[in-house]
């Protein structure tokens, strides 16, 4: 089997799910003829036609609301946000309407909202965001954010088959940089299960998305230069979160560094830290530390963006502090 990119893996999942289930359809801005801003949906229109690959007006509230309505009627819509930053435009519809539909009205809302997320790409303040924390805070939504091509495909299939709304964050830095060989057959990765990206025994890095790769680079360097054995846990799913896997790695290494690309205050690292504190405090040999972006809007210039976002060198420095504690 040939290697395909993270982006192609997502596209492959969309093709396979649309082929498998006639209720699955895609809607979004410029996703049809143009194939999407990043070409994730390229080829879908030719194969499935205008009715199942719907080019929409620029209207995030309209698109997300329409997806919810169609989902109530038994369809399984997959919405593309041209950039995940624009989720904010649909925040009311997602949090007030979609997230509450099952609970308040017993209305199923099986839909996926997916889109290119994250920085390291010189995209500036509105094409680089990581707004996932705002949505894991909302009961009723599920949130996944894969780091590998295999997980991108498997989680997309799981998200489309899930009976609730799943926000599917795709890291645009990884779109064409990361490749993988897809497992044969119907490859579905369950939502809510983390993955050990690297085994280790001295300290754990808990992370997800692009910073999984920063953590792996750091782990390599720490092994070579410090003889440290670093475990890297890739969460993959942020809501629900795999508490079992988090506790297991904490209890194994007793030292934890949480790394994410999102800003610091109110970021998911704080939530993970609180959970560890509540359930595994007695296993800790050091305080849980965080490596995150600075609390600033993401700037455009390379020198600025690189400074604001967490880099491998930051992870190495923090891990050394933690190991020496």
């Amino acid at each position, binding site marked *: 089997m040939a290697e395909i990119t993270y982006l192609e893996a997502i596209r492959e999942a969309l093709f396979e799910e649309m082929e498998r289930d006639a209720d699955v359809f895609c809607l979004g801005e410029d996703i049809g003829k143009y194939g999407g801003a990043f070409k994730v949906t390229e080829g879908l229109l030719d194969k499935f036609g205008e009715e199942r690959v*719907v080019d929409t*007006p620029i209207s995030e509230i309209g698109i997300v*609301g*329409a997806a919810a309505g169609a989902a109530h*009627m038994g369809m399984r819509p997959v919405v593309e946000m041209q950039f995940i930053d624009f989720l904010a435009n649909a925040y009311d519809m997602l949090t007030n309407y979609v997230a509450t539909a*099952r609970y*308040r009205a*017993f209305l*199923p809302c099986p839909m996926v909202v997916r889109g290119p997320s994250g920085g390291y790409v010189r995209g500036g303040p509105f094409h680089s965001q990581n707004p996932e924390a705002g949505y894991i805070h909302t009961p009723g939504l599920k949130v996944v954010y894969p780091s590998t091509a295999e997980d991108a495909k498997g989680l997309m299939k799981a998200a489309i088959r899930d009976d609730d709304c799943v926000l599917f964050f795709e890291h645009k830095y990884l779109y064409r940089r990361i490749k993988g060989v897809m497992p044969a057959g119907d490859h579905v990765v369950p939502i809510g299960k983390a993955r050990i990206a690297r085994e280790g025994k001295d300290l754990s890095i808990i992370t997800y998305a692009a910073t999984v790769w920063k953590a792996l680079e750091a782990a390599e360097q720490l092994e070579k230069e410090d003889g440290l054995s670093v475990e890297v846990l890739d969460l993959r799913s942020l809501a629900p979160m795999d508490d079992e896997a988090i506790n297991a790695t904490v209890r194994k290494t007793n030292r934890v560094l949480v790394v994410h690309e999102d800003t610091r205050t109110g970021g998911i690292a704080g939530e993970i830290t609180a959970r560890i504190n509540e359930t595994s405090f007695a296993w800790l040999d050091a305080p849980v530390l965080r490596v995150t972006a600075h609390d600033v809007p993401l700037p455009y210039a390379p020198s600025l963006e690189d400074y604001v976002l967490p880099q491998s060198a930051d992870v190495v420095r923090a891990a050394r502090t933690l190991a020496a504690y």
Partner: protein
Amino acid sequence: MARASATRAPKRAAGAKDSPSSALSREQILDLYYWMRLTRALEERLVALYRQTKVVGGLFRSLGQEADAVGSAYALERRDILSPLIRNLGSMLVKGATPVEIMKQYMAKGDSPTRGRELNIHFGDTDRGFIGQISPLGDMVPVMAGVTLSFKMRREDRVGLVYVGDGATSTGAFHEGINFAAVQKCPLIVVVENNGYAYSTPTAKQTAAKQFIDKAIGYGVPGEQADGNDVLAVYDVTKRAVDRARRGEGVTLLELMTYRRKGHAEHDNQSYVPAGEIERWEAENDPVTRYVARLRDEFGFGGGDIEGVDERVRRVVDEATDIAEQSTPPEALDALTGIYADPPAEKPLWFREGTGSVVDKHERPEGWGVFEVKKGDNR
């Protein structure tokens, strides 16, 4: 816009020979009266329950708007779906919501349609063809665009209808939803119920447009206005829009001219309403009074027919009250179920009595609390 007159824009005479309402049977003509009378009587009973503090939250009236709710919903078939607003109790009753359900909702009973999760008439049933609204206004327009998009995709002979008030037309969701539906030619009827006020805000502070149907041009859809207090005129204008939608001609924007005689909710003293306005509408343009006159004068129903309906309504409301009052509140733990299909329920938090604390479990590593000074350890 101060409402100097209590008659507002009756565009055409209802009941004309070529109008859809001319095809209604005598039973259906009387049926329309039943639904309007039931709406009013049910709300009056709810007011009594509210004053007895049996209604848990606020109470919302549609007094004076019964014709626009009932007449529009009556133009739909059972398979069609509508999304009501807070003043569309009548629409929901027509679509099959029962007075018992309404009362249980208001009284937050455990066996209410939402099991005590949602307020008042915020509930739905896709089988009977109504989808519950949420409080942020305008949001149901995109949702109903999607509902009707699915009808189109599946080649189903079904249409949708969504109500917004004069206030909701100012929202982004209204604009995005109707525009999306118009572009996709969804079989959707968007009904603007212009009742003069959004909470305390008069229409003149809501829009600079002379009338709401002027907005239809911008969306490239037909717009029609009707006297919202004439139930047959409402039926006619809605039925024509429904027929267009069924023929694949897409969205219609309707504006029903009516008047909100009660405040936003029961707590609202309407201090912002010019003196005499409410009284004038009550005296000159009450939709139920108007329809009773037509039933007698135009359709030749006798006093017995009309009183028969009134009696039936009283019985239904009495029975519903008795049944609803017997129900119990929801079990507290039910609050934790059904946020997702999977997992089916959230776990109670550890500090809840009897649910077990993660800390209380004393889950500790081996050797916790054992401190041994090892050789050569300086700490």
